[in-house]
């Protein structure tokens, strides 16, 4: 199938090549245009009964409420670029995808959303009431599945250990002093 546009300067048409059209399916094409909205879209192809053609007039009144089309075009464009990038196997399209994601506020593999809630609902968390909420475990699942505290054998606190070590050294010094005094007086 082929799409031809007469009387209108169009660009960035998606998809670039129209796929085969199956029965009861629509033809969906996105694109942009410059200048006045006028002209004709002509769809040509070959059916089982031979060549066929369908034309659609474009006027300024056609589809006045088309705000969503901008995002649909961008999403389709991003999908095409992402497919192409996967095919090539590098990130050569990352810049184009990122720019589209940022310009049209869309989620892509390089852009994400950050939601900042400006309204603080819980002004005093410490005043909140604590509630013990029962949470029965499924049959056969042990309490250890919850990551309960596992006992260990830590060393004593640093300050206590320092105090004990210094005490032992002080006792040693005292014993030496006594032994020396005893030696001198005996």
């Amino acid at each position, binding site marked *: 199938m082929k799409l031809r546009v007469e009387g209108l300067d169009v660009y960035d048409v998606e998809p670039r090549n129209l796929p085969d059209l199956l029965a009861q399916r629509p033809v969906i094409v996105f694109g942009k245009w410059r200048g006045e909205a006028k002209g004709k879209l002509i769809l040509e192809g070959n059916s089982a009964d031979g060549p066929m053609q369908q034309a659609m007039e474009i006027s300024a009144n056609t589809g006045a409420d088309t705000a969503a089309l901008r995002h649909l075009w961008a999403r389709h464009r991003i999908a095409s670029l992402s497919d192409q990038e996967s095919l090539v196997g590098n990130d050569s399209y990352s810049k184009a995808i990122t720019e589209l994601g940022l310009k049209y506020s869309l989620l892509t593999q390089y852009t994400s959303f950050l939601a900042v809630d400006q309204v603080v609902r819980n002004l005093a968390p410490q005043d909140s009431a604590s509630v013990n909420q029962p949470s029965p475990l499924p049959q056969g699942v042990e309490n250890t599945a919850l990551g309960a505290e596992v*006992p260990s054998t830590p*060393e004593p606190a640093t300050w206590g250990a320092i105090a*004990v070590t210094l005490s032992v050294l002080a006792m040693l010094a005292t014993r030496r002093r006594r032994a020396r005094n005893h030696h001198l007086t005996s």
Partner: protein
Amino acid sequence: MDHPRFSTLPRLLQNQQFVRFGIAIDTAAEWRWLALLAVALWPTWWWMGQRMVDGSDDPLGVLALAALGALVWQHRLRLRAAPRLGFQVAALAGAVLTTALHAQLPDLLVALVGLLSLALGLLAFLPAQVATAPVLGLSVLSLPLLASLQFYAGFPLRVVTAEASRWLLSVAHTVERSGSSLVVDGQLIIVDAPCSGVQMVWLGYFTACVVALVVGRTNRSFLLRLPVVSALVLVGNVLRNTVLVAFQASGAPLPAWGHEAVGLVVLALVCAGIAWAMAVTPSTPSHTTR
């Protein structure tokens, strides 16, 4: 005709200012040298202070620095009027090297060079009876070492401790070891980082250095006893771990203060054992092995 290099010295010696400068250098008070050395190492002090304040390491190094200070204070009346040149040159070279290596090597290695040079500076003025090895040992212990020791030696120590505890506990319990964890009678008990005994290692070597200096051990005598220190620390940590695990496995786990008490009692025994091992024979100061 004299070589210019040899003719320069007599000419310099005729210069009164140069001679006065030489005399001033030679007769400079020891505290000036040490103070200048300490000031030259200020980036190291800054880094060590930051490590201590931001909680990235335990403040045990202060204890070793205090011990070095106490050593100098103890010998303050017997400090050498003229420094031992070998130590003095090495200390100054170390200080220069510390400055040159700053931001080139990891901070811990740079601080190691700095503190060793400080120790050499102290040894240059300390009496010859003071052994060098314990002083160097204290300078190494001054470093913020514990976090690095925990990172590199923590896991092997935990595995050895857990395996020894498994062996001891298997007398009365069914024990399996998996990594550094024990499963005692079906109950999982972990020997995690705080159980590795690294703190006891530090305090054990600190005790060894201090006692060696107090009793006047020679370098050889001190170094020969160091394996005993390691063995006592390891045995102590295994004993502490085994007792705590045994209480846990018996269904009567000790409260937090009980853990502390057992740990402190074992530490006291280990330190006393190390002190005894270092002081067991009367010291016979020798000038030949310093």
